[in-house]
C-alpha cells in the first residue's frame, strides 16, 4: 500500500525547505572573519581560560553569528573540570 501512502502524504512544503537552506547558507556567508583569524582567537581564548579551568580543546567551537545587536563571536567550550585550586594571578 505504499502507493496509497505516497498518494496522500503531502510532501514537505518547499518554503520550509527554502528557509532551512537559507539559514545555513547565510550563517556561512555571515562568518566573514577569516579562518586564520578565528584560529588565532581560539588559541587566545584557550590560553586565557585554561589558566582557571580544564577545558576540552578538541570539543571547542568558535563561530560567528549576526543578530539584533550586530555580529557576535560565539565560543562553545566544553569544561572538563574546574580546578581545585584556581591559579589566581596576584
Amino acid at each position, binding site marked *: 500500500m505504499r502507493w496509497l501512502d505516497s498518494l496522500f502524504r503531502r510532501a514537505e512544503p518547499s518554503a520550509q525547505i*527554502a528557509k532551512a537552506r*537559507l539559514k545555513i547558507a547565510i550563517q556561512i556567508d555571515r562568518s566573514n572573519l577569516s579562518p586564520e583569524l578565528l584560529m588565532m582567537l581560539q588559541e587566545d581564548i584557550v590560553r586565557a581560560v585554561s589558566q582557571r579551568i580544564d577545558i576540552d580543546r578538541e570539543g571547542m567551537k568558535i563561530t560567528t553569528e549576526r543578530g539584533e545587536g*550586530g555580529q557576535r563571536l560565539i565560543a562553545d567550550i566544553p569544561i572538563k573540570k574546574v580546578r581545585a585550586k584556581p591559579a589566581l594571578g596576584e
Partner: protein
Amino acid sequence: MSGTVITITSGKGGVGKTTTTANLGVALARRGKRVACIDADIGLRNLDVVLGLENRIVYDIVDVVEGRARLRQALIRDKRLPELLMLPAAQTRDKTAVNPQQMLKLASDLKAEFDFVLVDSPAGIEHGFKNAVAPADRVVIVTTPEVSAVRDADRIIGLVEAAEKPKPTLILNRLRPGMVKRGDMLATADVLEILAIDLIGIVPEDETIITSTNRGNPVALDGKSQAGQAFGRIAARLLGEDVPFAVFADTDSVLSRIQKWFRNPNGGGGA
C-alpha cells in the same frame, strides 16, 4: 532646506529596484513632495524607460559630474507630476565614470532643492553599489521571497552596516499570497526572521506592473492596482505615517482566476 537621500538596492538583479524607485518617486510626488530620482546604474540605463521619460534625455549624470552640463540642464521633469524629476544614467560609459565623492557632491546639491533624492542602485556589490550607497541617509533593500534574492539581501545588509549607514529597511516584492498559503513560498515572517531588519512594505505580484511598464506609466500614478496601492503605502511610511500592512487576497485561487477572466476574458486568465 535639506532633503533625505534614500538609496534603493538589493544585491541581486531583477528583483524590482528600478520599478520600486520609479513608483516611490511617483507616490512621493503625488503626496506633494519634491523628488529627484537618480539612475546610478551607469552603462545599463533603465529608470528612464520605466518612468516613460526616455525620449527626453539630453544630458546624463556623467555629463554633470564631468562639468559638461549643469545639474538643472540634465534633470528631466515629469510632465504628469511636475514635482518629480529624474537624472538619467550615462549609457555609453561604465560605473567607474563616477566615484563616491562625486555622488556625495551631487546628492548634497540635490538635497538643497528636493525633499527626497531617490538613488536607484545597480545590482552587485562593486563600484556602482558603493557609489549608490555613499550619499544615502536611508537605505531600502528590495528582495523577492526567493532563496537567491534573500541571500543577496543579507550580504547587502552586512555591507550597508560596514558603510556605517543606519540599519536598512526592507521591501518584500512580488509576493504571491496563494503560494505562501500553500507553503510553497517564503512568507513575510520567514524573510524577516532571516534578515532581521524592519519591514517598510510588501508589494504583491501584479501583472499591472508589466502592462504599466510597457506603457511607461508607473502603477503608482493612478494607485488603482494592488501594487500601485502598495507603493503608495510605502511612500506614506517613508513620510513617517503609521500605515498598517495589508493582507493580500489569494490571487491564485480558482475563484479569483474566474473573476479575473470575467474582467478580461482575452487576458489569458487561466495562467
